[in-house]
C-alpha cells in the first residue's frame, strides 16, 4: 500500500469496512509522532508504552462502535486521546504517588518498625522490674502516691481524694518520691537506661 497517497480518512473508511490492514497502516504512519508526544510528557518508556497502547485501544473501540465522526482529522483526534490519557496518568499518580527508592533517601528509615527488638525488649523488662523493686525502699506515703500516679494512671485530684490529703501534698509526695528514687539509684550506681 502506498501510504503517501492514501489519506487517513480513506484508511479509516477501509478499516470500518473490515480491512484490518488499514489499522496497521494508520498505526505505522503515526506511531512515531504519538509515541514521542507521550514520551515527551512522561519521560518513561514503560509508561509511554502503556499510554500508547491505551490510546489505540480507545481508537479501535471508538471506530468499531461507529462513534468516530469523520472530519478528516484522524491524527489530532488520536493526539487528543493520548493527551487526555497522559493527564489521567498524572492525576492518578498525584492521588497515589509512587515512591522511587533509588535515591540517597531510604524510605525504610522512615517506615521502620517502631517496636523494640528482642534484646531491647528484654532490657526494658529488666529495668522495669528493677524499678519496681527500688520503689519499695521509698517511704510508704510517697510510694502510695507514686504507685497511684504511675502504675494506676490516676490524676492528682483522684489521688488526693483517695488518700485524703490535699492536691499540693500529693504533688509534693510525688516530687519527693522521684528525688528519693534518684538518690537510691545514684547510691547503688545503677544505670537504668535502654
Amino acid at each position: 500500500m502506498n501510504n503517501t497517497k492514501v489519506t487517513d480518512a480513506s484508511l479509516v473508511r477501509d478499516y470500518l469496512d473490515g480491512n484490518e490492514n488499514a489499522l496497521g497502516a494508520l498505526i505505522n504512519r503515526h506511531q512515531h509522532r504519538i509515541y514521542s508526544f507521550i514520551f515527551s510528557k512522561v519521560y518513561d518508556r514503560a509508561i509511554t508504552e502503556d499510554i500508547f497502547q491505551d490510546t489505540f485501544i480507545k481508537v479501535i473501540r471508538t471506530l468499531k462502535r461507529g462513534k468516530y465522526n469523520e472530519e478528516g482529522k484522524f491524527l489530532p483526534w488520536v493526539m487528543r486521546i493520548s493527551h487526555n490519557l497522559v493527564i489521567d496518568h498524572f492525576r492518578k499518580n498525584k492521588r497515589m504517588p509512587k515512591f522511587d527508592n533509588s535515591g540517597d533517601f531510604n524510605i525504610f528509615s522512615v517506615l521502620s518498625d517502631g517496636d523494640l527488638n528482642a534484646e531491647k525488649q528484654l532490657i526494658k523488662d529488666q529495668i522495669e522490674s528493677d524499678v519496681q523493686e527500688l520503689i519499695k525502699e521509698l517511704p510508704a506515703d510517697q510510694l502510695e502516691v507514686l504507685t497511684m500516679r504511675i502504675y494506676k494512671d490516676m490524676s492528682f485530684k483522684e489521688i488526693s481524694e483517695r488518700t485524703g490529703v490535699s492536691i499540693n501534698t500529693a504533688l509534693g509526695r510525688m516530687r519527693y518520691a522521684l528525688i528519693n528514687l534518684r538518690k537510691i539509684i545514684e547510691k547503688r550506681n545503677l544505670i537504668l537506661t535502654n
Partner: protein
Amino acid sequence: MGKLYFKKPSKEENLHHLQPKKETIEFLLNYSKALSVIEYKKMKFESLLN
C-alpha cells in the same frame, strides 16, 4: 561542585529513536481483529473473540 560522570542524553536525541515495541503493535492489531461490536436494538455490545 559535584561533577557529572555520565553524559546526560539530550531530549531531542532521545525522541529521535522513539518507537513503540513490536509486541505493542502486534497486540493492538490482534485486539482489533478480536474485537467485535454487536448491535441489538440501539444497544452495542463488545465481545473479544480470541
